[in-house]
């Protein structure tokens, strides 16, 4: 299994961690995509994807938080007392999330208003905590950064796809702009903007994603 190959608790970083970097990247963004395979972080994926722009900012936020927290957790992994490791992880994650939130509030006020509480809720996003606990605690910093980027991209890409189709079908626009010909001809379907539309869109995207990826190889028991 791929899992065994990338578990490199003792590996010496050379190149991109002895060639494990690419595998980690593929694992996070594709074969073990946090959203479409592990079905984590659904709450925010449903809530903010009514506009492509919102989806992209949310994706960027998650990449930032995931990379930052993975790096710090990995750097501190040999010094963190085992008993309080989860508290420590949450403290680190919360710090990065609030940093991003403050940045949005200061420089992208309108975006911050649209995303509302969902930036803050990244603190409780299972993807970030999951990667810190499952990966960064056992792996060296550079590989952990790669893992953070990979999972962040995996999340952001799915969000962008859903955001693109929801905005296109729900409003007939992209990035809040009219599209020549299409916008005149198309009658927007409001359902796609509303929450139920998000469920439908997410379900279809997960379905297509799994169809392309093919069936899961047999679990080794």
């Amino acid at each position: 299994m791929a899992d065994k190959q990338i578990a490199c608790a003792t590996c010496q970083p050379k190149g991109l961690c002895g060639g494990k970097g690419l595998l980690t990247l593929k694992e996070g963004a594709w074969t073990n995509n946090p959203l479409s395979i592990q079905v984590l972080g659904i709450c925010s994926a449903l809530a903010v994807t009514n506009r492509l722009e919102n989806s992209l900012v949310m994706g960027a936020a998650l990449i930032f938080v995931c990379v930052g927290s993975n790096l710090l957790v990995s750097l501190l992994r040999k010094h963190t007392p085992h008993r309080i490791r989860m508290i420590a992880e949450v403290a680190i994650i919360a710090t990065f999330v609030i940093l991003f939130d403050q940045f949005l509030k200061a420089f992208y006020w309108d975006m911050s208003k649209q995303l509302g509480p969902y930036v803050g809720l990244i603190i409780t996003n299972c993807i970030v905590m999951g990667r810190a606990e499952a990966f960064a605690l056992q792996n060296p910093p550079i590989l952990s950064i790669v893992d953070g980027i990979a999972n962040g991209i995996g999340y952001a890409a799915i969000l962008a796809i859903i955001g693109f189709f929801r905005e296109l079908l729900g409003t007939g626009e992209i990035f809040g702009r009219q599209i020549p010909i299409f916008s005149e001809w198309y009658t927007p379907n409001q359902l796609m903007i509303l929450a139920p539309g998000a469920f439908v869109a997410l379900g279809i995207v997960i379905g297509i994603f799994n169809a392309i990826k093919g069936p899961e190889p047999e679990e080794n028991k």
Partner: protein
Amino acid sequence: MKGNVYTLVYAAVLGTACAMVLTFAASFTAPYKKANAEAEEVKNILLALNISIPDKASSEQLVEIFNKNVKEQQQGDIKTYVYTPSNKNDGAIAIDFVGPGLWGPIKGFLALDPKMTKIRGITFYEQEETPGLGGEIVKSSFRDKFVGLMIRDEAGNPGIIIKNGGEAAANKVDGISGATMTCDKVQEMLNEAIRSIVEEK
């Protein structure tokens, strides 16, 4: 296994480090956030007064438009925002209102014509009503209904009515179906604001 003292020290150091980073970030972004909050307030007053603002106006632009067009005046206990346009169009006078909604406080601005007979415009800048029902109060489709609404009934008593059905009146608008509670509460807080400004006049 590392000892309890180590665990405590580790937690204290990590906590302090995180807190320091966040304190620094908060104080660094404070002036920007303050400017944004000010611009947000100013924008809502401008919208209520029906002063046209560019689509993607920056915070500075909004404050500039506000300072150029609007004067703050104190009438008794009430702070008013008076708009006196340069061309001879009628001006407007805005006051803020606040009151309990269904789920949380509702805050907004109400603009009247200078003679205090009609509503010029209305905005809500803070509300937590049910999305899709009470939350619709922020939509222009609802807010536009108030433009031109008389603030007194036929007997001359100040007050407006937000209600579905019933007899049409110059001081009545249709509410939102499915959001009767929100409409009742909005009506109440608007009437309180109207009464206070009419009495002050």
